[in-house]
């Protein structure tokens, strides 16, 4: 407890973070982008799915009290409480939208390829850059080979590019039904993708040439270029994309059409592979996703590097481009140069990344508290009065024992406060008004445990024991009662935390926390205090004001001594 309180002051987080209803925060308005020809995709179902996914993203643990809701037909509002890293939240929220798995056709280093002539310079730069960085990158192919392939792919634009495109087309046809939303009209896609050649020539070679040009000119280090790119990428088309490799350097890719999309991923997480001692990302696909994935991987595993890689593209950006060595199906893992953070991040993106719509950020602005200070104050004042009443009641009924109860209550309140303060920055825990009320009530419920114990002690005294043995004998029985009841509360908290999402989860967290604190306080504070108190003259002599006066408790030992050979008949008197 001292450590906790100390920690609270040491980190300077001396106040709990307040939820958006009490402290306000940031509000982000997102607008669903109606894709040309697919306006109907912006419908209620998709919007609600998107709300659910965004909610999970910003409120992963359920304790940060972020709110997500639709507004009008095509807007989503995200409210984030003050004190959250709003930059990070913005990144999590809206712009990261769609997830696709695409085959890699070409990879190169991320800068502008200086010469307009693609082949020579491209391969040179690509190779040298690759040499420098990708040997530690086990997700990717070995350097020389990759550079060669890159070279080949980009230099001889006409011939080999034909095949991936047609191949891509065929797959697109196959994919069209399941991948409902992303089918933009080819024309629009074309023109935005290659602004230099506005003539939307459907001929594969022309398209590829345009792509080549774009690829060469692309500078992945330029954020604007990247944004422009991700805005224009169409999943069913061959496209260029940027991505960081695991060494943190930008690379650019030419990617085939999307073969599997984010909706096909059932679940994914970053895990520590115990055997190899490295972080990996495991993926489970849905049944239809597994089929698609099997198809793409069986094809890819036969290819040369880099064409045996598939890129995981999130909102136009390549998140990872693992190599495929064998045909895979429903379960797959990505191993590579991950650390815990990057593995878990990729896992999150894979499982939550599949927003059914693309969103653009329309506005970001601060938002005031809806309830504000006066409500919080009213709550705190009312709570304080309520607790004062509890104290008065305890004093009237338990007299001296109330002191122990009061100290325990204070300890419990202090612990709750310190933990909540510390958890704010640690896991984004934020208190809203219901939680504040809950905490006040929880303190009252904690007092129940003391009462259970006190009543036990009094029962023992009624049976004729002196205080010290009574305190010790009462403890195991009271302890059992307290543990059983607290276990039920904790069970409620644990189940709700695991099963639910959003605010219910946040509540479950608070409930579990206060229940644990209850046990901690009773075990390590109330009980020792009681033992100590039993040694003092005031309590052990059974003064009327101690609350443990045997006579007042109605202990009448002589009348039933016959049954209890072990008890000292005159116990209360001698005390």
């Amino acid at each position, binding site marked *: 407890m001292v450590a906790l309180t100390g920690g609270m002051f040491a980190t300077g987080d001396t106040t709990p973070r307040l939820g958006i209803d009490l402290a306000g925060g940031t509000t982000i308005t997102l607008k669903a982008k109606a894709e040309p020809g697919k306006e109907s995709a912006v419908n209620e179902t998709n919007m609600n799915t998107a709300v659910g996914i965004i909610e999970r993203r910003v409120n992963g643990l359920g304790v940060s009290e972020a709110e997500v809701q639709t507004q009008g037909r095509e807007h989503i509002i995200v409210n984030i409480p003050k004190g959250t890293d709003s930059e990070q939240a913005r990144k999590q929220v809206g712009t990261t939208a769609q997830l696709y798995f695409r085959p890699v056709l070409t990879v190169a280093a991320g800068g502008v390829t200086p010469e307009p002539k693609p082949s020579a310079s491209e391969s040179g730069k690509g190779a040298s850059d690759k040499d420098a960085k990708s040997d530690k990158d086990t997700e990717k192919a070995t350097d020389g080979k990759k550079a060669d392939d890159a070279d080949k792919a980009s230099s001889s634009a006409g011939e080999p590019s034909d095949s991936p495109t047609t191949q891509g087309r065929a797959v697109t046809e196959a994919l069209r039904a399941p991948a409902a939303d992303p089918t933009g009209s080819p024309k629009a896609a074309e023109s935005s993708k290659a602004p230099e050649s506005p003539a939307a020539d459907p001929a594969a070679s022309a398209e590829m040439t345009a792509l080549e040009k774009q690829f060469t000119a692309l500078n992945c280090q330029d954020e604007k270029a990247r944004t422009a790119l991700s805005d224009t990428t169409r999943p069913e088309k061959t496209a260029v994309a940027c991505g960081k490799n695991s060494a943190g350097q930008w690379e650019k890719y030419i990617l085939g059409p999307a073969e599997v999309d984010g909706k096909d991923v059932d679940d994914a997480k970053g895990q520590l592979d115990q055997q190899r001692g490295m972080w990996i990302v495991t993926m489970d696909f849905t049944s239809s996703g597994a089929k698609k994935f099997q198809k793409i991987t069986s094809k890819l595993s036969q290819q040369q590097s880099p064409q045996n890689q598939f890129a995981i593209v999130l909102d136009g950006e390549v998140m990872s481009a693992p190599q495929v060595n064998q045909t895979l199906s429903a379960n797959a893992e990505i191993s590579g140069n991950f650390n815990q953070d990057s593995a878990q991040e990729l896992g999150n993106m894979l499982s939550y990344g599949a927003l059914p719509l693309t969103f653009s950020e329309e506005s970001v602005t601060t938002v005031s508290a809806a309830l504000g200070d006066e409500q919080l104050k009213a709550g705190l004042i009312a709570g304080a009065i309520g607790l004062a009443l509890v104290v008065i009641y305890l004093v009237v009924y338990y007299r001296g024992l109330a002191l122990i109860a009061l100290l325990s209550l204070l300890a419990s309140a202090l612990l709750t406060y310190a933990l909540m303060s510390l958890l704010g920055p640690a896991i984004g825990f934020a208190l809203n008004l219901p939680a504040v009320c809950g905490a006040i009530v929880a303190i009252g419920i904690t007092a129940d445990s003391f009462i259970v114990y006190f009543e036990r002690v009094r029962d023992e005294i009624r049976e004729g024991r002196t205080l010290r043995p009574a305190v010790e004998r009462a403890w195991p029985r009271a302890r059992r009662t307290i543990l059983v009841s607290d276990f039920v509360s904790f*069970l409620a908290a644990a189940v709700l935390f695991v099963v639910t999402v959003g605010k219910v989860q946040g509540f479950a967290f608070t409930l579990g926390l206060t229940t644990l604190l209850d046990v901690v306080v009773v075990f390590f504070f109330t009980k020792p205090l009681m033992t100590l108190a039993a040694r003092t003259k005031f309590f052990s002599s059974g003064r009327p004001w101690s609350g443990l006066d045997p006579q007042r408790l109605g202990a009448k030992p002589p009348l039933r001594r016959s049954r209890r050979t072990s008890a000292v008949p005159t116990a209360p008197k001698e005390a």
Partner: protein
Amino acid sequence: MSRLGTIGARLYRGEIGYDFVAKRKFWYAVSILITITAIVGLAVRGLNMGIEFKGGAVFTTPKTSVSVAQATEYAEEASGHIAIVQKLGNDTLRIQVSDLDTAAASKAKIQLAQDMKMDPDKINSELVGPSWGEQIANKAWTGLAVFMILVVIYLAIAFEWRMAVAALIALIHDLTITVGVYALVGFEVTPGTVIGLLTILGYSLYDTVVVFDGLKEGAVGITKQTRFTYSELANRSLNATLVRSINTTVVALLPVAGLLFIGGGFLGAGMLNDISLSLFVGLAAGAYSSIFIATPLVADLKERDPQMKALKKRILAKREAAAARGESPDGEDSDQYDESGEYEDALPGDVAPAGAGAVVSPRNDRGRGRSSGRRR
């Protein structure tokens, strides 16, 4: 309070008491009546779900100097519903009001514009979706179901299945009553309400478990004695732990009462009302049901157990025999059962000399509290 202490002692020893178990039919009836009222209220009036659950209208005003609190008041007046008002960074207001159709929304908008002295055309109104979507609600239901199953299993292991069933019934009883009160009072259901309701989930069971724990202890070795039937023992444990139950309830209710009557009532904090109302009703119902419903239910179920039936038979036979022999029941002793005349088992009272088994009772009532069940 010394008198309270004495009462506590007398309750503990079973000198005085209220026969909860014998009067159970009355309390069952009361509970069924309340529950039916709650369900009817729920069916007829339905729950007034807040904007967080079903969305509503959102008005965005132009730049204004009206404060959040003032705007809340205006909006609630104009719409008749709880409003959520937030000030945005550029000094415009975002006002969300639940349950308005388009016509009502435009009316509210005009009213709002008048109150805030601005041009109605400048107020932008749109429909807003729920922030507490169906997904959250569904998962909460799943969670509730999973929890109930697990808690029944746990209680069945820690105590026995009868207690688990009784605890579950008591829990459902509490939740129904609380939800019913919301339907009848017409308060808007907010996330705060739901959270209050879930708090009850834990608390109601906590209370019940404390009572059951006493009961379990009291019933140890019940088959080895022939003085009390299970129902009588249950009643005895209930009375012995009554002080504890009352105290724990009072102590849990006081802070909630503070929130409800002082915070919500005097300080006029609307949001506090709906959180603390559900807590207050639920906690009160939880305490009531653990004493008046859960334990009698256990006794009812338990009396169907062949062992307990046999025990009851033995006891009745013995009492009859004692009565036939004309042994007068100990006068002092029967006061506990005086008020429950219809409970025939109890009538003959103490049969001290015939006490078989562990119970040896030299004199009247004290012996009763010392039934073998008391010892561990």
